[in-house]
């Protein structure tokens, strides 16, 4: 039995150990070194890459990333909870609706994000239809705006909110809802005092998943946003490519990771073991 357990662990253990822990160590080392003129890194060691984060330019990007992630998470919560509740109460159709939530995952996220570009651009479907209907006379600027980025984040990560909430609501004993009504609670009071408190682990898990995914998003702000909507993910990518500043890129990645872990650890318990 013990030998079998070790064998079970080996493939994933080797992969994570080799391709996660070692690169993480390299990233940590790079973040403490000096940039080379054409990329790469040099000693001496320095803390300068971390102190540069205080620069208002970068601080603004960090702040914007957090703001977009919080906004996307909030919108996902207010859209995802009612949807999860609807699906959990759909009886025989439940599996159909659930698969409709998951179906977008069957297509590449890149392709789906491109599709949004075609919808949102000045000559895109939305503007064409509004122009044809006479609602507007000039195309609306939708693409390359904060609106487009947040829309992309909400669209991409809504299932991460719906699925854990659905999981808690599905487990919720129906007789508790009946007991609440029986004790005089109108539907709204039942929602507030029974359903939402009991769905709390799913709400916490979904919010954490959406927030973390949004905070580190790279593709969505890259394709749907412009220069003014750059997020941490894009900043990191810039440092390793056009800016050729690997040590600063490494420092940014580590800071993002630490922020996520710092949030996750205290919140994990509230998700009731779902994360």
């Amino acid at each position, binding site marked *: 039995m013990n030998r079998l357990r070790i064998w079970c662990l080996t493939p994933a253990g080797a992969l994570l150990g080799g391709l996660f822990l070692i690169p993480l160590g390299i990233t940590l080392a790079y973040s403490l070194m000096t940039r080379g003129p054409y990329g790469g890194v040099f000693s001496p060691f320095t803390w300068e890459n971390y102190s540069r984060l205080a620069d208002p330019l970068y601080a603004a990007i960090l702040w914007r990333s957090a703001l977009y992630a919080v906004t996307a998470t909030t919108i996902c919560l207010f859209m995802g909870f009612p949807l999860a509740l609807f699906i959990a109460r759909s009886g025989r159709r439940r599996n159909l609706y659930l698969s409709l939530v998951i179906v977008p995952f069957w297509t590449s996220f890149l392709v789906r994000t491109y599709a949004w570009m075609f919808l949102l651009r000045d000559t895109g479907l939305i503007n064409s239809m509004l122009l044809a209907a006479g609602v507007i006379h000039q195309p609306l600027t939708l693409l390359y705006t904060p609106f487009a980025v947040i829309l992309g984040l909400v669209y991409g990560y809504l299932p991460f909110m719906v699925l854990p909430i659905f999981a808690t609501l599905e487990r919720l004993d129906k*007789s*508790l809802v*009946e007991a609440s009504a*029986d*004790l*005089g609670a109108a539907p709204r009071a039942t929602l507030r005092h029974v359903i939402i*408190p009991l769905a709390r682990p799913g709400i916490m898990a979904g919010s954490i998943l959406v927030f973390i995914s949004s905070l580190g998003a790279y593709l969505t702000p890259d394709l749907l946003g412009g220069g003014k909507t750059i997020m941490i993910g894009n900043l990191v990518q810039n440092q390793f490519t056009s800016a050729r500043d690997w040590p600063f890129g490494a420092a940014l990645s580590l800071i993002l990771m630490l922020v996520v872990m710092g949030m996750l650890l205290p919140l994990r318990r509230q998700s009731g073991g779902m994360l």
Partner: protein
Amino acid sequence: MDDTVLELRRISKHYPGHRAVDGISLRVPRGALYTLVGPSGCGKTTTLRLIAGFEEPTSGELLLNGSRIEHLRPYQRNLSTVFQNYALFPHLTVRGNIEFGLRRRGDRHIEEPVRRVLELLRIAGKESRYPHQLSGGERQRVALARSLVLAPEVLLLDEPLSALDPQLRKQVRAELKNIQRGVGITFLMVTHDQEEALSVSDHIAVMNGGRLEQTGPPREIYLRPATRFTAGFLGAVNWIGGIGVRPESTRASTDAPPPEARSRQATVQSTTFLGNRYHVEVSFDGGARAVCEVPRNSHLFSPGQDVHLWWREEDEMRFPDQ
């Protein structure tokens, strides 16, 4: 006691291809412990759910204190349910569970009623525990307290004892009756256990196949069942030439029976020791069988022995309808 608190008039609940409840009419007297009893699938739980408002009747009327309530939502009915699994809110303490209904009602002064119900049900001191920290019996008392504190017109109990172990069940049964007497609230209970129904109820309604077989006080329906189903469901019956006699009213003797008694010749097949009594199984010429219950200290019979099986006329159960 002829004051009716709850009345069902031809209440039906039909599902596609299935009549769960089929035209039930009954009156629950105020202050009574009224029991709906029947085998599983007879529609008794559906009837309770119709009264509570969790299901809508296909047809029929429901009257609480003379007013129609079948169109009201559960939270608009002054009734309360003790669920079979108790359905305590796991995220609330004992106190939170008991205060739940009072708070929804917007009552200002909840301290005193909560304190009284905690004492009545002997759960004082456990207010800050969560349901998962309680024993089965304590959970049941919290479920009762949570409903009783609202002083409903009728308390509905769905198989209240079935989740308890058999040792505890008889004790809680007596306690339930005492509580009901003490608070004076009408209890409408559902059970599949005929002994439970007979021992606690003031009034019993026997259900079968979605219909009402018979209603009446326990003694009356046990001793004078209106149908063969009721007779057989409430206790064992010896069917002797179209009439029914309960085993405890059936005697066996080697001597001639008293002249006024009804009797048949029978042969002893076996005897079974039951601790406080024996069961003697006998067979008649045609092959039919019967059981008579005899005291432990009475004359013992041996298999193959010919005996007189006799009973008194007043113990016969006749069913003119069949």
